[in-house]
């Protein structure tokens, strides 16, 4: 594998990992996920483009506003697409979150337009430096650094802060946590907000590298879910590492066999890996006491 391909794999893998952390954070606490994470990612990219380019806001204002709205979108998904079904003991949230993603994509289609757009050049993509004869753009460094930093922050938050420990308590026993005065509903809302926030960060980071359109997140969302399962969805580090493994595998397979085989081989490898380790590469089987 050439160094350029390696950098490509790490960059894409970080994106998948970041998006997959959104699956992890909600599943770990509530055993539910937003299956439309890809749509939330698209929302981050579309909003940032609209605020910064169409409306001419300063970039940092646009980014902060986009992240705030993506976080709010996560809350809406939980309130509308998850909670009503979980309360009735139904698994229909699976379909409800998919449906909300489709609705979001179509709303964006009609408001943002059907014409794909591109972020204007920025120093993150026009400047470059050489690392052992390999040209590297700053964004290619920012993406993995952001992904790993978020994984570290998530780990620190959940293990070192009072609120994080409260979340872990909800994971272990929601009823006991409730009796101890922890607001379980609020804890779950926070995880969906974080899920939306991570997707927004991924969308903003990928926007300068990709084309911005209402459908840009679809395939990303599917791959991120595969990564989350592959990593063992209850392990933040596992999910992030699985993202990097998946990204590198994609780049390596394309490099060796050509892109015709990329999706065939990578998804086949996911199946093989899960057949060998049903709880993911870094997950552990749940112990059920009876």
């Amino acid at each position, binding site marked *: 594998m050439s160094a350029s391909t390696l950098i490509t794999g790490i960059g894409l893998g970080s994106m998948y990992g970041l998006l997959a952390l959104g699956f992890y954070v909600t599943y770990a606490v509530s055993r539910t996920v937003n299956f439309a994470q890809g749509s939330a990612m698209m929302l981050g990219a579309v909003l940032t483009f609209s605020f910064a380019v169409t409306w001419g806001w300063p970039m940092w204002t646009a980014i902060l506003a986009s992240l705030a709205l993506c976080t709010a979108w996560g809350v809406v998904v939980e309130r509308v697409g998850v909670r009503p079904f979980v309360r009735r003991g139904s698994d229909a949230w699976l379909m409800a979150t998919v449906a909300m993603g489709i609705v979001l994509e179509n709303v964006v289609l009609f408001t943002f337009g059907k014409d*794909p757009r591109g972020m204007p*050049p920025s120093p993150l*993509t026009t400047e470059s430096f050489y690392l052992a004869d390999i040209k590297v753009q700053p964004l290619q460094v920012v993406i993995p650094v952001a992904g790993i930093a978020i994984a570290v922050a998530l780990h620190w938050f959940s293990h070192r802060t009072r609120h994080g420990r409260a979340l872990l308590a909800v994971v272990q026993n929601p009823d006991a946590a409730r009796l101890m005065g922890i607001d379980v509903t609020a804890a779950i809302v926070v995880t969906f907000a974080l899920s939306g926030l991570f997707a927004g960060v991924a969308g903003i980071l990928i926007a300068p590298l990709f084309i911005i359109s209402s459908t840009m997140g679809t395939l990303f969302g599917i791959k991120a879910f595969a990564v989350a399962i592959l990593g063992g969805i209850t392990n933040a580090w596992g999910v992030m590492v699985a993202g990097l493994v998946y990204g590198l595998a994609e780049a390596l397979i*394309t490099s060796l066999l050509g892109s015709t085989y990329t999706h065939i081989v990578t998804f086949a490898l996911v199946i093989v890996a899960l057949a060998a380790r049903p709880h993911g590469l870094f997950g552990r089987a749940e112990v059920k006491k009876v």
Partner: protein
Amino acid sequence: MTRRNHQSSTPFRRGLAIAAATAAVGLLAALPLNAADPVKLGLVAALSGPSAQSGEAITRGLTVAMDEINAAGGILGGRMIELVRRDDESSPPKGVIAARELIFKEEVAAFFGGIDSPVSLAIVPLANKSKVPFMGVWAAATPITRNKADPNYVFRVSAVDAIVDIKLLQYAHSTFGASKIGLMLINNPWGESNERGLLAADAGNDDVEIVGVEKFENNDVDMIPQLTRNKDKGADALVLVTNAPPGAQMMKSRDRMGWDVPVVSHWGISGGRFPELAGPTAGDAHFVQTYSFFGEQGEAGKRVLAALVDKFDNINGPEEVFSPVGTANAYDAMHLLAKAIDQAGSTDGDAIRTALESLGRHEGLIKTYDPPFSAENHDALNENDYIMVRFAGNQISPIE
């Protein structure tokens, strides 16, 4: 008295009026067509999605030509042409549904196609089976017109992959001195059509050798692995075949890996916001076109450009005519089709097909067609009609 007369005459008059109205309705129903009925011509093209600009450019060309024809009295002794558009969203199944609607519901006399070869290839069997002429104005896949149907109802005023591919290899050698070519092809029927065409062109060209054939998907974010494979095989120029969004992704990947290899492209990249999507290196791609509104214009060029400026608020000159190839091809195609319908003397598909195959000399925008088509050749343009261009900012500028 008067009143009585009036009362006595009313039933008679009413009966007369009813009889006259009945006769008029019967007469109208008996007439096959009113001389004022428009002749409907269809368009199936991408009017939304990544290639939406191409559909708009085609519409502009067709509309300007249609307005000229209608202003001059129409066709078939005074019937106006009416354009009925349908969006294929760059999707072959949607294109076929749209074509069926145009043929069977709208009953168009003939219809035009859009930029996407996979869509046009899917429509070809329907056009031949329904015996309704289908005129391509952009999609360049070789089998669109060379489809082995007899009789063949598919014609084209556009480039042909098999011929473009010869031109692209020649240009890579003559302009950049390239001898080892790496191919970067979209993974769809259009890419496959060009893969066959480029390999055939390579076999007949002693100056260049194709050293790598790489494919990519429409939504690939990063194409550095494919580019690296071509680089490792020694490619000193790339031939690109794709539409604007994935083409832009390839240019960005090429830039990221710091490989300033020359890029010679088919014209798909001109059908969208390529300069915006590709960023600063968009101008590095040299690509083929059939017409440019820049430079000295002939009579037809001046007339069409004036009409475009007059008709569309956002056009003030050649720099605002995005995707000029779609506009120019569509303009000539509309005139040729209208001429054929006039010559056929009817809107019967078979009569129009025969007329197209026997049309005489026509002074068009792109060139003088003499003749445009024959029974053996349904492609109006050939290698002598192609020019090479590049993006200068958002404008398509000819390369001397």
